[in-house]
């Protein structure tokens, strides 16, 4: 999928892509955080038929609605596709050695072969967290790997 990116001098950025069914959807990102969701005319790709102005909070909410379920769906799909692959949701309990430490410090993938693919925090999802992501007590870590691998990650997260 190609996302076309255009600078809008004085306003911000415009991103537009075409869906598989031929509709064009775009987002205008204003410098002040405002987002405009734009849906283009079926017959005239130059014109927007609908433009919805979103405040930064509304844009976040929309992104979460679109993104959260996708992560879960993708995991479920992965699970179905590969026999023997397990997805586990592991809590970071208060007192965990990794409360406040970074994802990279766990060296989970090297030690167990399982990957940390997402972290759920305060109802939101951080997909594909980077090695410098800092865990906090209350996080739920989503791990994908073999049964053994994910069990090993669970031990690392509780015992170090």
């Amino acid at each position: 999928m190609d996302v076309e990116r255009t600078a809008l001098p004085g306003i911000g950025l415009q991103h537009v892509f075409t869906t598989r069914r031929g509709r064009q959807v775009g987002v205008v990102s204003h410098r002040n955080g405002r987002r405009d969701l734009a849906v283009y005319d079926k017959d005239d790709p130059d014109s927007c038929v609908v433009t919805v102005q979103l405040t930064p909070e509304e844009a976040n909410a929309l992104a979460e609605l679109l993104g959260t379920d996708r992560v879960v769906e993708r995991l479920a799909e992965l699970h179905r596709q590969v026999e023997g692959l397990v997805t586990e949701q592991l809590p970071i309990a208060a007192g965990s050695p990794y409360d406040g430490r970074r994802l990279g410090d766990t060296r989970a993938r090297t030690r167990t072969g399982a990957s940390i693919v997402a972290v759920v925090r305060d109802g939101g999802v951080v997909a594909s967290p980077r090695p410098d992501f800092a865990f906090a007590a209350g996080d739920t870590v989503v791990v994908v790997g073999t049964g053994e691998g994910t069990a090993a990650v669970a031990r690392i997260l509780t015992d170090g």
Partner: protein
Amino acid sequence: MHSVAVTLIELGAIILGLGLLGAVAVRFSISAIPLYLVAGLAFGSGGILPLTSSDDFVSIGAEVGVILLLFTLGLEYTADELVGTLRTSAPVGLADLVLNAAPGVAAALLLGWGPVAALALGGVTYVTSSGITAKVMGDLGWLGNRETPAVLSVLVFEDLAMAAYLPILTTVLAGAGLVAGAQSLAVAALTVTVILYVALRHGTLVERFVASPSDEVLLLKVLGLTLLVAGLAQQLQVSAAVGAFLVGIALSGPLAHTAREMLTPLKDLFAAVFFVFFGLHTDPGDLPPVLAVAAVLAVVGVATKLATGWLAARRAGVAFTGRLRAGAALAPRGEFNIVIAGLAVTGGAHPDLGPLAAAYVLVLAIAGPLLARAAEPLARRLRARRSPAPALTEAEETP
């Protein structure tokens, strides 16, 4: 004490009146600029209720208004955007310049106002009001449209053209001899180049100097720096407006964003004062003789901007409707046309230039946004007339 009381009462009445006019503008979603101008006309020399004792404040306020208008215009675009646009959109920008300045130049020459007034009137007919255009496009939900980047590049190019034009205009208006004129132009060119260089290569230096975690400190630093540079530029015969504009360009990134948020209320206040001031110093009695010329220039001005928009959008590969929208979006004139006319009138160009510019902006600041609203229905009609068959199936499909 008595005079202070009268001044305060007059000022309060003016600002409150502007507030009420602004409310009307918001209610009908139009630009407030023509209303402010009319208010100035009504209370100025020859108007229905001349104000006198607040004149000093209003004239200083108007100067500050021009400086802040140009400063925020400079803030609008980063130096990178300016240079990038110069690379990509120069042909359209030049076409815009030639198409839209020519009617003003021609009109002034035909009226026998002389070359200085021709230069000024060319500027008055040339510049699109970026403020009104941006508001119209936002209101109509056009920001996502395909022609929008092309329209914005035209505005950015005009911005750059102003940086070159204003020093030339002020030099010519000063009426210095060839040598002195060339000297001050050279100073202006040098100043502009130095500031653009600093902005492009060492923008972080300026930002580091101005940046502060406290909004108050930031506001004072930015405002002080702007007024200081504007004053120095004026001293060097470069025009205060240009100095302020260049300070705006030199600030970019998140700092520019904060600075714009902090200074916008101040700009709104002083810009309103400036429009009133311009109206105050224009005798409504001078308007009728220039109305016909203003009307012709306005019609031509809409046509030339439609052509500019058409060209810009076509170059971006946009079809019929989008081209019409681009032209209509560019049609409004407003703040900077008045700024140019103001400079010209104080600089001693032909006295009828002020009323003419006022009438021109009055017409186009109101007609421009209306035209933009009419653009899409008009395009639908024209397209239907061109090819009736697809229009029919379209109508059947829509419930």
